[in-house]
């Protein structure tokens, strides 16, 4: 996990301020307040899930055997690590409130960027959760299965590209990872 305020937060806050300003110019104070009320109730609704996600991530990073994780998902895990990450992302239940805390926990206990990218991309592209709940009912079974079939190679490719780029733009971090 990270510091509460970073560059990403600042960029997002600026984007939000500009958007809120545009909404105010178009819809006036009422328009701004209407969105605020709606989003505040949404926020209250998801807070318990956020808490559950945080606890899940903390427990998992505590109970996972670090050595095993860095062996099977670390920088030297090779194609197997990318495949394990992909398989893990595909079977992970729940929504974003489970996937991202778990991915973050894996990163913390020794998975490298490549395997974690494979996992996140696999969760979003071939995970069954969203496909069953939303894509099949809305887009139809044929399209969904066909789209998933096309997506099958993508998590491994994304993870491999991630590793390839990572060792080139962060050579020092990568070398330090090697020592571990």
């Amino acid at each position, binding site marked *: 996990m990270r510091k509460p305020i970073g560059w*990403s937060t600042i960029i997002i806050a600026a984007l939000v301020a500009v958007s809120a300003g545009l909404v105010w110019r178009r819809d006036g104070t009422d328009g701004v307040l209407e969105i605020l009320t709606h989003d505040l109730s949404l926020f209250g609704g998801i807070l318990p899930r956020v808490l559950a996600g945080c606890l899940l991530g*903390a427990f998992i990073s505590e109970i996972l055997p670090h050595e095993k994780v860095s062996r099977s998902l670390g920088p030297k895990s090779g194609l197997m690590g990318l495949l394990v990450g992909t398989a893990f992302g595909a079977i992970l239940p729940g929504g974003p409130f*489970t996937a*991202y805390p778990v991915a973050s926990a894996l990163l913390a206990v020794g998975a490298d*960027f490549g395997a974690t990218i494979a996992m996140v*991309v696999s969760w979003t592209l071939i995970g069954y959760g969203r496909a069953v709940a939303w894509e099949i009912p*809305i887009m139809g079974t044929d*399209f969904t299965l*066909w789209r998933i079939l*096309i997506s099958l190679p993508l998590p491994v490719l994304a993870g491999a590209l991630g590793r390839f780029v990572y060792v080139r733009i962060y050579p020092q971090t990568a070398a330090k990872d090697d020592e571990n």
Partner: protein
Amino acid sequence: MSAALLIDILLWGSVFGVGLIAFRRGPPVFKASLREGSMDFINIVPRIALGVIGSGYIAAIIPQEVITGWLGPDSGWLGVATAVVAGAATPGGPVIGFSIGTVALKSGGGVPQVVAYVVAWALFAFQRVILWEIPFMPARFVWFRCAVSVPFPFVAAAIAMVIGKP
């Protein structure tokens, strides 16, 4: 409603399960991870708040018709590129993303373009990135993940062009 309840039961059941495993490793392990999880929660809440409230405003200034318009019958790679931008810019959750994809398919949008749209939406939809991925994951990872994912909606479209329609 019942689906939401099911998700919550599954979620808290998993928390309880891994919590139990941690507890059996000894109460200090359990307490330490409980404290860590709570601290993470406190740190994440402001970012989630910014994400939820902020993405509402960003979504309000992107009319859905604009996104649908970008997914017109413009075929070829320009159409694919437009579809990728549209996927990243689509506000709202899965219902909106997939509905826009369905509308595009029915109104004559090319299949590779719609595949590129759905894949780009899954990879980059700004609301999910702002609301969930950035708060929960190291920022450096999120930007890196997004950057290396850029080619893949195009790869998906290329595969769709080669193997044909569903």
